[in-house]
């Protein structure tokens, strides 16, 4: 039998192996040249760019006020656009208007709009995101066109661009296409864009929320929960009894932003909801309200069958309660061991357990003694094996 090595050797070793070696050597040479050439070109480019940036910063006011001669110089135009877009992102009011006007006057905005419509693949995606950063309302039609592009990456870039615009007008085409099931992008990307666009005018969402059904409606409700303002109480109340648990949870989340007296009754209702995550959101919102009237509801929630709801109820009580010994007394009297444990754990987390015990010891009385004893018993059952708790770790550092 002849081995494969031998067979190959007999066939034409010089030809095959030599060719293979040459191909490898050529490959190595190409890769090395690529590294050297790329480094050299980048070093050259960035040196020129840095010089241009320094010049642009030194003459910033002149450059944005004067006729845009820089527009016809590729590097100067690129640097100017970058700095303009960076400035636009952090500007407000008149300054923003002045910078956007400069973009318009220089023709950079038109150029990007043209690119967003005519270019393909990653160049188009780059133009779409740049357009979003301009925060100019004229960008919306070009971005809207891309919302129904054939490939997902372009649609995502268009939605991100809309989000960067952060204009209520930009939300409309996204909402329209989304409710017609013509906009297919990851929902987190869409939620971020809608949140950015609707923050200043959450009412934009309402007609679409009323008209939508199923999962799109849940998504819109989730966005509404983040952007709702104090004036939307009535709209939110209508969502409290919705059939969808996701929408009830969104309503519970949003109610933390409205007038506490208006929010308390619906949140109390939602804190007894059949779905654990609705109760959780309601309890968190009650905690955020931070009002004494929420205390009885939160004490009731300490006995919830879901651990996370119980933990958040304890957190809420820490925020809402003024007289903590009284709260603890009421919690112990409620007779729910889970509730006492979770309350003790939260006090421990906030380092308030030991000071509170001292305070109660100083106040004295047999009632206080019984209360302290109940709390210490609950603390011993928190899940750590007391046999393993080393004495040296028991005292605070």
């Amino acid at each position, binding site marked *: 039998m002849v081995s494969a090595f031998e067979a190959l050797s007999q066939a034409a070793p010089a030809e095959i192996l030599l060719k293979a070696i040459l191909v*490898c050597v050529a490959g190595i040479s190409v890769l090395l040249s690529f590294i050297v050439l790329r480094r050299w070109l980048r070093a050259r480019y960035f040196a020129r760019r840095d010089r241009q940036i320094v010049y642009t910063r030194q003459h910033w006011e002149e450059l944005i006020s004067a006729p845009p001669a820089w527009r016809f110089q590729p590097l100067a135009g690129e640097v100017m656009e970058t700095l303009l877009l960076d400035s636009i992102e952090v500007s407000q009011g008149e300054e923003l208007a002045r910078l956007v006007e400069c973009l318009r006057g220089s023709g950079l905005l038109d150029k990007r709009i043209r690119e967003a419509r005519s270019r393909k693949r990653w160049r188009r995606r780059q133009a779409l995101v740049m357009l979003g950063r301009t925060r100019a309302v004229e960008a919306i039609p070009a971005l809207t066109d891309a919302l129904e592009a054939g490939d997902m990456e372009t649609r995502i870039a268009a939605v991100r661009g809309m989000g960067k615009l952060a204009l209520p007008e930009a939300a409309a085409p996204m909402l329209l296409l989304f409710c017609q099931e013509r906009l297919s992008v990851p929902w987190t990307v869409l939620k971020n864009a809608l949140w950015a666009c609707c923050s200043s005018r959450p009412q934009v969402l309402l007609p679409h929320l009323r008209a939508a059904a199923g999962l799109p409606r849940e998504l819109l409700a989730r966005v509404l929960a983040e952007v709702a303002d104090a004036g939307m109480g009535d709209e939110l109340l209508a969502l409290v009894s919705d059939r969808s648990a996701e929408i009830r949870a969104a309503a519970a989340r949003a109610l933390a932003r409205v007038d506490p007296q208006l929010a308390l009754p619906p949140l109390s209702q939602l804190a007894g909801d059949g779905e654990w995550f609705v109760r959780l959101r309601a309890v968190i919102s009650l905690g955020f309200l931070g009002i004494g009237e929420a205390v009885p509801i939160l004490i009731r929630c300490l006995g919830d069958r879901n651990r996370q709801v119980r933990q958040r109820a304890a957190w809420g009580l820490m925020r809402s309660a003024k007289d903590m010994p009284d709260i603890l007394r009421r919690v112990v009297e409620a007779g729910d061991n889970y509730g006492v444990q979770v309350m003790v754990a939260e006090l421990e987390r906030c380092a308030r357990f030991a000071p509170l015990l001292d305070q109660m010891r100083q106040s004295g009385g047999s009632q206080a003694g019984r209360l302290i004893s109940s709390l210490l018993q609950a603390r011993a059952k928190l*899940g*750590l094996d007391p046999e393993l708790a080393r004495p040296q770790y028991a005292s605070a550092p």
Partner: protein
Amino acid sequence: MIELLQLSNSALFVYYVLSNLFYLALLITAFVATARHRHRLMSLRLETLELSPFTPPISILIAAHNEAATIVENVAAVQALDYPSLEIIVINDGSTDDTLPLLRSSCQLRPASLLYVPQVASAPVRAIYTSAADERLIVLDKIGAGTKADAINAGLNAATSPFVCVIDADSILEKDALLRLMAEVFSDPLGVVAVGGIIRVLNGSAVSQGRVSEIRLSGRALEVLQVIEYLRAFLIGREGWGNVDMLPLISGAFGIFRRDIVLAVGGYRAAAIGEDIDLVVRMHRWLMERRQGYRISFVPEPTCWTMVPSSLKDLGKQRARWQRGLLDVLWQNRDMLFRRPYGRVGWVMLPYLWVFELAAPVVETIGYCTILLAAVLGVLSQAFLVQFAIFGYAFATLISIGAVVQEEVTLRRYGHWTEVARLLLYCFAEHFPYRQMNMLWRLRGMWQHFRGGVMWEQAERKRFGAEVKA
């Protein structure tokens, strides 16, 4: 005898050609994936994720066993991460050094009796501490069980976020690393169940206040050789496998997982030596058995800097452990091989790991022996052998330089010309004797596995940024 030698040489030849073809395919796939990824990054704005209320919270789990040299800076680095909602859980896994006292003083820890519900099995927790300085930080002090997996399980029990990020205590994350990883999750929130970033070698770089302040290549040859290995493993191996949805491993030093899936598969297997690959393979199994569409991804730019062994002894221990871990995982999951429910994982990924990763040191050793024997006995043309060795050397160098090119295109962290030149020089120098030593360490790992009784052997830890004298 000669017949046997020739048969063996034929088999080795086929093995060699196939393994090189696999590598070439991975290199090409990785180049394509990197180009695509770079274009995708153009539409990504990290500040959107940082400000968004929809960015989910993450629990960071740091298992620490005798990590006094690095733990304080490690925690400081995590605390400084750009991420809107973090929970940081350090698990002191039975340390006998100053890990816990150092944490107690630097983070102002205080004992707290928090609710701890064991959802996955782990050794008992002795005490829980919260930090007066940072309410996001929790420290679990547990009885050491001898494996990192057990410590991470304790962290999983204490975690409350929908995603967990597991990192090593001797590593430092870059500030935007979590956001960059989560951007991948956002691109497909229901599909991505786990995502890993790149691990890079910290030795030689300067660290101050929990941040890598100056990136430099180490002065020691052994550490530079590991730089090339890491670049090759991540920027070619992981990038290539991830691009075809067959990622076998998310490094234990830096990866994000959906907590519900990790809990569903029973957490980390406490007895696993390679707990990271074990978890990923079990996730593949669990999700494929349920016919769930999923993705386990790799993203090349979120960076975790880690200290690598700087002595041959420690490196040998590490490589032996990796090989033991691989053997253990592949053996545990041998029923997935060539079975329909496991699709591409059972038909391509696992066979590749068996044949070209696990068996490589054995085949290579046999190869060296039989080819030399055949050459000595005159049944193999010596001229051909030399030509073949030159080809093997050139091809392996090409792959390593490909990894450096990937680094240049994606991260380009070594800014100075001299450092790139050194890196390239080592691409030519790594094939002898480093490669052969690696082979022997891996063989030792297999031997240890079959012999049994070898527990976790921790390498000597050095402080971040401490210059190593040759």
